[in-house]
């Protein structure tokens, strides 16, 4: 049948049915005639079905099938596979098998009362070649990923070095220090990239982030503007504090490592200190963090609070890992959407509330992660292009 197109097949089936039932129109009759004349087989099939309305007896035969009984039988088999115990065991088995195959990926689904299931999958190399733009002072937009190792000439004669994973402003020597000229780095989704500023500060930027910075720091403070998420490794210079302005908050540091998360579509600005000292302030409050502490600024209520956290959870992304612990699926997807450039939909509200934990390597595709979620057998996961639909398994 595949020698014809799908459409032709559908028309043919419909036309034959209409002819048999005696309600065909001219067009359909012609189609059936043509088909009959194409081969002896076709003609014989037609005769078999039409002679004495044999088709009607066949249809009655279909009607006599014990559908209800058949369904009950099938449903028993469908149900049996979805008990919790059967869910966990194959997962554990899978983990054991994969453990022997150089594993780089672990997902923990924390069953509320039933312990943990461990799943592993082989590792793929993350791809990091899409979507970084550098905007120069004169408005020129340089798509970073399309260039190889290059040097870019700025207005003041500064030279910018870049290769495929980082860009370096610290190697240039500018003679006249008169006025700061600003560049901007824009990360599109699915991309992380390192920039080294002129003072040697390294900023590892996560997807969908934006950093505006001077090609060379001149004033008494090193000031940059930032939105998104980045891991800052600020070069020590006690005389000139490094200041990050983001959504109403200033983060001032002397020399330190910390993670800053300040996406404009999220309600919190989160600063997590790894080492050194930072100070977070808005126009009213100010707080200093010690390593392992985190400052959370609620952008709506303008409240600033601090807490002690597991730093790994907040910095995993810059080791090309995605780490979650008891995190709502919706929050997980929010993160993944940024990285993989996908959209997600919850067909059941409760699906968004399921909590998962796990550590993923970053893949070039979201599919292995979706597979992990599927294997918990708790959710149906359907991907159509870059749209992903979740529903609870009933």
């Amino acid at each position, binding site marked *: *049948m595949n020698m014809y197109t*799908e459409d032709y*097949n*559908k*028309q*043919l*089936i*419909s036309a*034959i*049915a*209409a002819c*048999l*039932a*005696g*309600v065909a*129109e001219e067009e359909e009759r012609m189609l059936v005639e043509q088909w009959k004349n194409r081969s002896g*087989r*076709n003609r014989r*099939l037609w005769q078999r*079905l039409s002679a004495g*309305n044999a*088709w*009607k007896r*066949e*249809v009655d*035969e*279909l*009607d006599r*099938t014990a*559908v209800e009984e*058949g*369904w009950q*039988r*099938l449903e028993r*088999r*469908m149900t049996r*596979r979805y008990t919790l115990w059967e869910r966990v065991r194959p997962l554990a088995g899978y983990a054991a098998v994969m453990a022997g195959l150089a594993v780089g990926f672990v997902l923990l689904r924390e069953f509320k009362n039933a312990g943990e299931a461990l799943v592993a999958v082989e590792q793929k190399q993350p791809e990091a070649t899409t979507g970084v733009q550098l905007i120069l002072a004169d408005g020129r937009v340089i798509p970073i990923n399309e260039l190889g190792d290059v040097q870019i000439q700025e207005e003041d004669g500064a030279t910018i070095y870049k290769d495929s994973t980082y860009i370096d402003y610290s190697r240039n020597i500018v003679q006249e220090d008169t006025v700061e000229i600003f560049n901007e780095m824009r990360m599109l989704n699915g991309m992380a990239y390192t920039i080294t500023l002129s003072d040697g500060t390294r900023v590892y930027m996560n997807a969908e982030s934006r950093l505006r910075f001077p090609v060379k720091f001149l004033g008494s403070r090193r000031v940059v503007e930032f939105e998104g998420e980045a891991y800052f490794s600020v070069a020590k210079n006690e005389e000139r504090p490094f200041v990050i302005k983001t959504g109403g908050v200033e983060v001032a540091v002397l020399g330190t490592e910390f993670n800053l998360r300040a996406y404009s579509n999220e309600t919190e600005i989160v600063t997590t200190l790894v080492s050194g000292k930072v100070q977070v302030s808005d126009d009213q409050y100010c707080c200093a963090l010690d390593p392992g502490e985190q400052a959370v600024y609620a952008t709506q209520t303008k409240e600033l609070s601090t807490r002690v956290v597991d730093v790994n959870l907040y910095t995993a992304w810059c080791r090309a890992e995605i780490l979650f612990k008891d995190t709502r699926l919706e929050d997980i997807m929010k993160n993944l959407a940024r990285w993989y450039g996908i959209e997600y939909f919850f*067909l059941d509200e409760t699906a968004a509330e399921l909590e998962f934990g796990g550590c993923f390597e970053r893949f070039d595709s979201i599919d292995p992660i979706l597979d992990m979620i*599927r294997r918990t057998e708790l959710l*149906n*996961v*359907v991907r*159509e292009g870059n749209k992903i*639909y979740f*529903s609870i*398994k*009933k």
Partner: protein
Amino acid sequence: MESESKRNKIILKIQLGNRKAFREFFNGYYPVLCSFALKYLHDRPSGEDVAQDVLLKYWENREQYSSLEEVKGFLYAAVRNRCINILKREQVGERYARFVQQNEPEWFEEEVLEHEVLLLLQQAIGTLPKQMKRIIEYSLSGKRNAEIAREMNIAEGTLHKLKKIAYQKLREVLKDRF
């Protein structure tokens, strides 16, 4: 075209694990697949087993299928493969299995076509109201109008009208199917 997307919608619902949709699909395809398997096996219980296995397999792998065409392709091919394997396993059927395999490809297409036609007719007739269904059945069996009118205890003029409507309706349903 609208009903085309309606039919695919059922597949999409099944893909998301909707049991009700799968039940509806089962109602249509279980009888057809049983009958299809019977063409190979000539044994009703084994035919039902095959149809059950194949539909269960579809349910378990439902996430892979997003269109009716794909599902149909899978179901018919899977029934055929299982049947041939069963025939091969059974010593008695060995000669028959060889015969089936030799003549199979065209024969398979023919059977698929036939079963799709039958399914369509079954569903179309199934959507008619009871009275119209009877009228169509009577006239298919070659009864004259006067005879039908007498049996159904209605005036011949009424039957005339009803018959016309019944055929119109059947025509619409058949046309609407694809």
